[in-house]
């Protein structure tokens, strides 16, 4: 795959919750196999953006959006199988949600829903995903206990494993490290660097330094608008194009 190929193309995207405009006509693209960082304070539309991409915004009754979003050149409104689109995208929410199932079933859930029944295939998929999420060693002896009994940090890694379990091409991490200790965060960051060889990663984060460590390019969202989008080195340099960006990443406002 050509590394500069466009994976996600967003054109003039507006999102409304009732009368409130959450995203005010933003356009950008995400390239294949890059780590795309999104930073910005609360209420800037980061999570909303992710929900548009995997079309789960449709479950919010009062939400509407207009504009064009294309994943692999295909308009997401016109995809024939929305479930296939969602499987193409792994989503990790800020707060861990372990499904009330066993650890094994949590990770095997998505493959099963996609129709995989073969036990060996499921076993290897579960082990691989748990390893990638840096959780395997801690839970390999108790895969049949409830996922919800794990600690918060472990549950978050479980949700990462679950997001990887349907072999997505795009991995969206929405402030994944809120509930995880720094050491584990570092381990997962290492994993992400590995993963971006085979998939595209969108990293939404409140920790600007995390974006700096991982992202190839970083987008600064503020109140539903893109303030600046550039290579991460530029965003975090002493002279980004916008003064606002400099102020935000250096903690002067926000």
């Amino acid at each position, binding site marked *: 795959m050509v590394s500069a190929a466009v994976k996600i193309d967003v054109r003039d995207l507006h999102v409304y919750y009732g009368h409130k405009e959450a995203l005010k006509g933003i356009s950008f693209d995400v390239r294949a196999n890059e780590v795309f960082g999104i930073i910005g304070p609360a209420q800037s539309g980061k999570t909303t953006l992710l929900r548009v991409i*995997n079309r789960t915004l449709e479950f919010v*009754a009062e939400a509407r959006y207009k504009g064009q979003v294309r994943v692999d050149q295909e308009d997401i409104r016109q995809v024939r199988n929305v479930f296939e689109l969602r499987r193409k995208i792994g989503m990790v929410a800020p707060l861990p949600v372990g499904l*009330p199932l066993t650890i094994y079933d949590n990770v095997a859930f*998505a493959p099963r829903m996609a129709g995989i029944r073969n036990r060996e295939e499921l076993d290897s998929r579960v082990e691989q995903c748990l390893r990638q999420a840096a959780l395997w060693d801690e839970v390999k002896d108790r895969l049949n206990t*409830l996922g919800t009994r794990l600690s918060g940090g472990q549950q978050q890694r479980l949700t990462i494993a679950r997001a990887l379990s349907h072999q997505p091409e795009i991995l969206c991490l929405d402030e994944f490290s809120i509930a995880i200790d720094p050491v584990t965060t570092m381990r997962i960051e290492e994993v992400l660097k590995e993963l971006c060889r085979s998939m595209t990663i969108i990293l939404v984060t409140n920790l600007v330094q995390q974006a700096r460590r991982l992202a190839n390019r970083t987008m600064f969202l503020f109140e539903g608008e893109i303030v600046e989008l550039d290579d991460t080195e530029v965003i975090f340099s002493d002279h980004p194009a916008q003064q606002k960006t400099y102020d935000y990443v250096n903690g002067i406002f926000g």
Partner: protein
Amino acid sequence: MFIRTHLTRRKKRHELYVKYVLLLMTLLIILPLILIVFYLIYQAAPILSLDFLLKNPIRGMRDGGIWAPLLGTIYLVLISLLIATPIGVFAAVYLNEYARESWFTRVINLAVVNLAGVPSIVHALFGLGAFVLFAGIGRSILAASMTLAIMTLPVLIASTKEALAAVPLAFRQACWNVGATRWQTIREVVLPNSISGILTGIILQVSRAAGETAPIMFTGAVFYKAIQEGDLLAYGLLDQCMALSMHLFTISTQVPDVPAALPYGTAVVLLGVVLLVNALAIVLRIKIRSRKKW
């Protein structure tokens, strides 16, 4: 060191008052219940026996047992549940999981709430008109069960909806995010985690269906009908039947010279059936809750 002041002593005293007042109120509500049960059993004691359960009423219902009404009540309750449960649960799943907010769903929800408050005698008249006369089923167990089902449906839908709504939205979102369909999500995550609440709603309707007299009086229950003793399949779907609630009503008000123990015995059995079902539900709930997963 912590020293008791006048203020802390007073706070402590108030705490005690409140606690005992609350306890008193709690005891006050159990007291009538206990009194009722003991009084009934005391009055019914001379007549309670296995024979009382398994023999038909004889001598113009002044003697014998309550086999025919007991079996009739069991039929009515079971068949009405068989009709109401699937309809009620699936309707609730639709309303809670699929329906979007619109004037249509708002009307349905409003209708459900209001139907739950309709008096049972009105349901009885509806059953008489719709099932017995219009549909031509005639007075029968089937028509009476359908009437009971109509009566229990609104509450069943409301309680099931409540149970479904108690499952956190985050679980559903997690499922949708990995590409599960709505139905897969409901089947794998929502229903297994709300089943105990749904069951509770169903069970409550059992007591209601067993106790109501009005809805079955016009639609299928009869004054007297002897059936084969000891035969569990003694009633056919289109037969008329006796029922405990109605039997109790007849022997205590319509038939002269009934020995006092007879109506009390009937009441004890009716109460026993309802309590038995409730106990069953509690056991089931505890079993399911021990597997509860979050």
